[in-house]
């Protein structure tokens, strides 16, 4: 059975036409019946992956505009570093939501007349945390560590933060309300991890598919691989405990 090339499964046509998969050759040589079966399977797979790829729209207490905070100055953003707000990511398995105090650090003075900011201030005055909802949720038996990924790629290898975060979170700086753009499935995780088990190319091959273009983050070319050992674990117990 051919592997379902869900990686590029934006549409059926792309699966059928663009992939350099051996399955393509298979189509010609087998009879119509098997082709039918394959198409059904691919349709099902593509449909599943499309559903799995991005999250349903998430209703947040405030429509937080990521593009305004992290986006390019040219487009009216402020180019704030991801780790400025999501400060836990570099030292905890959980990236976390910035504490209200951090928001208020700026919004005590900035844009105080806007409706969302007023609501924000209200929460602050009542001493109640914002009831943010999860956008990227993993099954409960998955133990993913933000800390390890940020430490490795940002601090040990020196890659740009937005690019590193973007591996899994997509190009958040263009989003209005954050949404999930990557499947976050186990096979998806493993593809990257497998690439990091020997000294191969600088960036993981599957990762290239979802990499944010360096130009987008105002950097020239991928950052150098600084002799950080490429020993990404592929051990089940690394994530399932």
């Amino acid at each position: 059975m051919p592997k379902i090339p869900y990686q590029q499964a934006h549409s059926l046509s792309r699966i059928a036409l663009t992939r350099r998969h051996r399955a393509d050759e298979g189509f010609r040589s087998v009879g119509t019946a098997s082709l039918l079966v394959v198409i059904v399977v691919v349709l099902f797979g593509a449909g599943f992956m499309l559903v799995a790829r991005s999250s349903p729209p998430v209703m947040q207490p405030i429509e937080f505009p990521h593009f305004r905070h992290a986006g390019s100055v040219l487009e009216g953003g402020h180019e704030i570093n991801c780790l400025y707000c999501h400060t836990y990511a570099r030292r905890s398995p959980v990236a976390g939501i910035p504490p209200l105090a951090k928001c208020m650090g700026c919004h005590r003075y900035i844009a105080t007349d806007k409706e969302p900011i007023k609501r924000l201030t209200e929460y602050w005055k009542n001493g109640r945390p914002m009831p943010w909802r999860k956008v990227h949720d993993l099954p409960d038996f998955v133990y993913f560590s933000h800390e390890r990924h940020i430490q490795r790629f940002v601090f040990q290898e020196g890659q740009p933060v937005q690019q590193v975060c973007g591996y899994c979170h997509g190009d958040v700086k263009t989003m209005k309300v954050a949404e999930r753009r990557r499947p976050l499935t186990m096979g998806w995780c493993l593809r990257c991890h497998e690439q990091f088990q020997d000294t191969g190319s600088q960036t993981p091959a599957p990762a290239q598919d979802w990499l944010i273009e360096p130009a987008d983050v105002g950097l020239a070319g991928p950052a150098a691989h600084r002799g950080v050992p490429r020993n990404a674990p592929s051990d089940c117990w690394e994530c399932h405990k």
Partner: protein
Amino acid sequence: MEEEIRKDIQWAQINRDVLHSMASPRPAYWALVGLCVAVVLVGVYAEIHQYRFGMGEARLNWPQMWGLYIANFIFWVGVSHAGTLLSAALFLTNTEWRRPVYRSAEAMTSVALLTAALFPVIHLGRVWDFYWVLPYPNERGLWPNFRSPLLWDMAAIFTYLNSSMLFLYYGMIPDLAIYRDNATGWRHRLYGWLSLGWMGTDRQWRNFRKGYLLLACFLLPLAVSVHSIVASDFAMSVMPGWHVTSFPPYFVAGALYSGCAAIITLFILLRYTFRYEEYLTLPILDKLCKLTFAIAMVWVYLNLIEFASVWYGHDMFEKEVLLEKAAGPYAPAWWTMLILGVGLPFTLLVKRVRRNMLVLLGLSMLINIIMWLERWMIISPALARNHEPYSWGYHWPGWVELSITLASFAWFTLLFLVFVKIFPSLSMYEVKEMLFHRRHVSDRLVREPAPEADSATEG
């Protein structure tokens, strides 16, 4: 010597007799089906209960992680083996008397396997994930563990089930065509489909025979390997009482033993129910009994081998397990199993027993119960007395396990009941062939001395 089949049966009568078995069922049939469905429903309820509350409802425990489900699994796989023996092995050895019996035996194989295949699933802690055992390509890039005997089991059972069902169906094609020719309306169309355009041309017959031979050749080693693999569930472990080299042949012998007994049961029941006296004759039953005896002796011998290897192997743990079987809480069951399992086949040496239907019916059913006990006695006593004295403990089945076990018997009966009503339970064309042989080939061989022999005496 008595005739295995009367020579003067008309072919039309064969058709009539067999097709009559597929006529609209009598109320007794429906009553039996109803009873079976009821028992199966009880089992389904038990399974739902177990699914909801957990495997603990099966009264399994630490260290008794396996119980009746696995015993049932081995039992039903074992029962299935005799069908293949009759249909494939005896076919390859050109044994004539198999012909009237093999169809029902073959059906029993498939039905027993359909029953057996349920148990590994029922037994799982997380039944809803049973398909993870299958090596299917998935997003996670995970594969099952090809080193695990359980995976071999799965592969073996699936292969065996598919092949034996194919074999059963394949062998039925000429008979289905007969039914098609005698049926009208939707039945005609249905059996037309099922008989795949069988016209009985020479070419079809030639190909049919070739295919049948090939399938038989394939199936025979497969059957042996299947139960050997089931035996490796135990033999591949390190547990005392399970880690026994002779388990594969022991399991195969036990399987054939119980399977033959099951065939005798079905033989008698079919003969009575469908008035197959002309075909399922006493001389054939007599031969079946002798076959059963022979296989039973192989089983007895392998039992002795096991004891001897424990004794001479001088392994403390193995000895303790044997002692546990003989003197522990399971001793009554074990001794019953051993004494009756060894003793009962010897009654088959008595001709009057071999000719007495009622006695044989009781005997064959008893042997099956004994063999079921044997399977249980492989599992529980060995787990009770493992390497770790602190874990020793026993398992006594509760209502959940017992209901599901009973339901498996009902399920088996139900499937078989359905089979005999929609398919010919006796091979018409093979019986015809048998008659043909009797009339034109065998008799000549027997009555007229072979020319070579003549020449030898002359010389």
